[in-house]
């Protein structure tokens, strides 16, 4: 079974937010600025004009990290949050009771409340839209102008993402919390 992850060549990112819009369009996310599954974080620049610190200004796309050791999954009382056979952390809206315990447990601010079902929602790696149609790309990856994202099977040694992760240094966010995220930022 494929185990999905994503590598991000984040230095390519120009903060255009095409990925944010593509995600909303593909998955029918509600409009509203706080209703987003993915986002591009902007590190505010340091320094004073004209001596600004270029290196301190960078863009970091982020979303649910589909952690191997997901704290959200650990705290969900009804197992509404679960990991499927592809390593994708999903929310079963039928079982979600909106206790929002997962929202306080997630270190990445990945979750928000979907007003239509009044359940918690987050990035699903396009599981019920693109993946289920057999397209092994996510909406955010597909649309990116500078091709920041590479989505693929981590268990396949020949997949592009595996090759990338073997050959390039990378880090993940908040690794010290032991969540074992599956989003890798290539340096």
């Amino acid at each position, binding site marked *: 079974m494929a185990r999905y992850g994503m590598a991000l060549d984040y230095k390519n990112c120009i903060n255009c937010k095409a990925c944010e*819009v593509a995600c909303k369009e593909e998955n029918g996310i509600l409009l509203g600025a706080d209703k987003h599954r993915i986002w591009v974080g902007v590190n505010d620049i340091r320094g004073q004009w004209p001596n600004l610190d270029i290196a301190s200004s960078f863009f970091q796309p982020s979303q649910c990290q589909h952690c191997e050791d997901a704290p959200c999954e650990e705290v969900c009382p009804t197992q509404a949050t679960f990991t499927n056979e592809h390593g994708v952390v999903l929310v079963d809206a039928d079982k979600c009771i909106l206790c929002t315990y997962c929202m306080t447990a997630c270190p990445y601010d990945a979750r928000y409340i979907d007003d239509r079902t009044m359940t918690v929602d987050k990035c699903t790696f396009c599981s019920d839209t693109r993946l289920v149609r057999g397209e092994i790309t996510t909406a955010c990856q597909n649309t990116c102008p500078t091709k920041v994202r590479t989505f693929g099977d981590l268990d396949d040694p020949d997949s592009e993402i595996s090759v990338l992760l073997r050959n390039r240094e990378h880090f993940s966010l908040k690794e010290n919390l032991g969540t074992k995220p599956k989003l890798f930022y290539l340096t």
Partner: protein
Amino acid sequence: MQVEVSRRRFLQGTIAMSIVGGSAVSATNLFASSEKESHSGVPKSITTKTGTGEATEVATLCEMCVNKCAAVARVENGVVTKLNPNPMFPKSKNMLCPRGNAGIQALYDPDRLKFPMIRIGEKGEGRFKRVSWEEAYDAILNGTDKFTGMAKILEEEEDNRSSFLFCAGEGMAEHTYKQFFLAFGSANWLNHGSICLQTVSSAYGVTLGAYPQADLDNAEYIIMGGANRAEAIVTPDTMDAFKRTKGRGAKLICIDPRFTNTASKSDKWLAINPGTDLAFVLALTYVVITEELYNKKYVEENFNGFEAYKKSVIEEKYTPEWASKITGLKASDIYEVAREFMAHAPRSVYYPGRRSTFSNSDFQLRRAMAIFQGLGGGIDIKGGLVFGKKLKLGKHAGVEPLYAQAEARAVEKVKKREKGKAPYTDCAIVTGGGSWLTWRNRFLENRMPYKVRGMFVYKHNPMMNMPNSKKTAQMLKKMELVVTIDTMPSDTVMYADVVLPEATYLERTDPVKTFAGVEPSIAQRNKVIDPMFETKPVIEIMKGLTEKISKPLWEITKKFDEDVQEELAEATKAKIGENNETIAPSKTLAQAEAELYKEFDLTIPFKHTQEEVNEHMVKSIYGEEAVKALKEHGVFYPDMDKYYKPISVNMHQYYPENKKYYTVNGGKPKTRSKKVECTIGSLAKKGIDPFPKWKDEYEFKVEEGKFRLLTGRHAQFTQSGTANNAVLRDLIMENYVWINRRVAKEKGIKFGDMIEVSSEIGSTRLKAYPTEKVAPHTIFFVHGFGEESEALTWAYKNGGNDNAVIKDVTEPVYGAASMHETNVEIRKV
């Protein structure tokens, strides 16, 4: 059915919306005017989720900006649920920016124009009455009690076709509209050129022979002056450049008064004073000349008039130290850039840029940039500036009759023509696109050589796109007949007499177009769904309009056009040969008229459907397979099936490396002389410096207590066109004015405080964004907000309008609008 639509009802959109074509199952709840709004004030349900059931995919080209990226639209149950990138187009390289994805919201915008309307209130009030297409055409021709019709105007102006102005924004169907303009016979054409890239395209045009592209995929050293490619996305430059900066193959030097996202991605940012780039380039030129770093061989073989320029640069002492005082940059930086550029030449690019003129020195700046590029020898070569190849297309015949009564373009020549001075009062050269600002101002000041009384506007928003919007409003009010063709009720539409709703790009097939470049191709926009409501593509609008007006206008022509009268008179006489034999019999007047009418028949360019026209243009050269490829894939180029293949999950090969068109002219410019025209004598005759020279008036001056206003782009918006797009507004709710943090602190301004920005011509209000990304003597805010059209629910009075404040300063060569020459005041309100 005639239904009086009050403006309020128009806003609410509760008129019966007939969705033509496709059983739009969930389209009705896409118009959420009755739905509860989320707390951001945006209706909840204008996003569509893709499904797993049956779907059709149609290849189209995006129209959310000018790039025309190839997209594949996914249609389920008659509803467009997703726009995916079409990987087969070499220019866009398998991507769609945020606006490309948001095309769905543009299609299903509740505020979009749905049916033709005619004005029943006062001009600018926005009170319209819904009418049928037939009634709208009739109103254009014959007018109503509120406005004069075309027939009357032409009758009174004795068939002076130039009494009508035609203006348009850029688009694939602009050509179709222009055919109407050409057939109509007016000489007054204005497009976005003079408020966009006039100076840069013309400057490179006269210097290198054509406006080139930059090979950012292979360049080792790139200087981008003001071109904010990370936010003002241009394909494929944006795709290529930012994968290679920061030590990954290319070094990018960003020259910009403010710290843009491009600066963030660059390797070095030089904070230059606004409008002083020319001094920088002259200093670079000085360094490479005096230190003999330039490609002497290339210059010897390929430059015309270099010696005069070289002499000037050295004698005027355009040293980096001199430039440092004017630009605010360090002299050491200027030396470094000059030396590094030449070290990497010819794989160095001084990026030409594209957008609006910054300052009055812009033409000379771009010339200096083109010359500097030539000094490195990086012209028509891999890694430098390239012209690329253009795949030919067949021609589509139009009609361009000559009207004897039609006056020449309405420009104002100087009364006493002096040699070495500009021949026109407003500028030195008048190009095809004209000079919008000066034309408008002359119209308002009654300095027109004849009466211009009506105008047609297509895909163009003068109220928002030019400086000094107060004057633009006056112009629109003064025009007796304003016909707008648009998809949204923009500010300009509010001033119209007749509003014709165009179908959005997803609802029409547009003329096939060839895209020149290193990897050339032909692409076509295919209709995804049938036009909604009563909208029509412009080709059908033109068809209907010309069918209505062609004959009546012909009658007017016959009445006043002496050439036509003469020809008819001739034709009714028999043609007698030398020996008194009849070569051709006489014709009746009716016959003669019918024959001559064929030249004046306005309906001829629109007799075929767009699909038929496209097929004709392509088949003749590339055959049936190309027609099929364009229909199915939206893209075609020769050997596409051989060359196109995926090379990774994200990237594709379009042409093998050895088949790419880096060099098409032997490494030489495309001027007639095949040389870089360094010194241009004909410019001198018109009062323009024959080679770039610095003038004191170009210096950056800001009075104490005032600020220089800059405008620009964010990747999430296309000028004012996307102001009402619901999903894009989530990304940027409104525009904020960038004020230097220290200045803001001094003035007690905090984030989010309401600020009034004012100049001599007007003021606007928007919120404050204190940041160090802008200098203490400068402020910035993004263009396209602050609409006054109440019909745009979310754009109405949202943010500030830069053109309410920017003065109508024009540069002297083409009369292009200099957008960065206005000093303003700010205060907290």
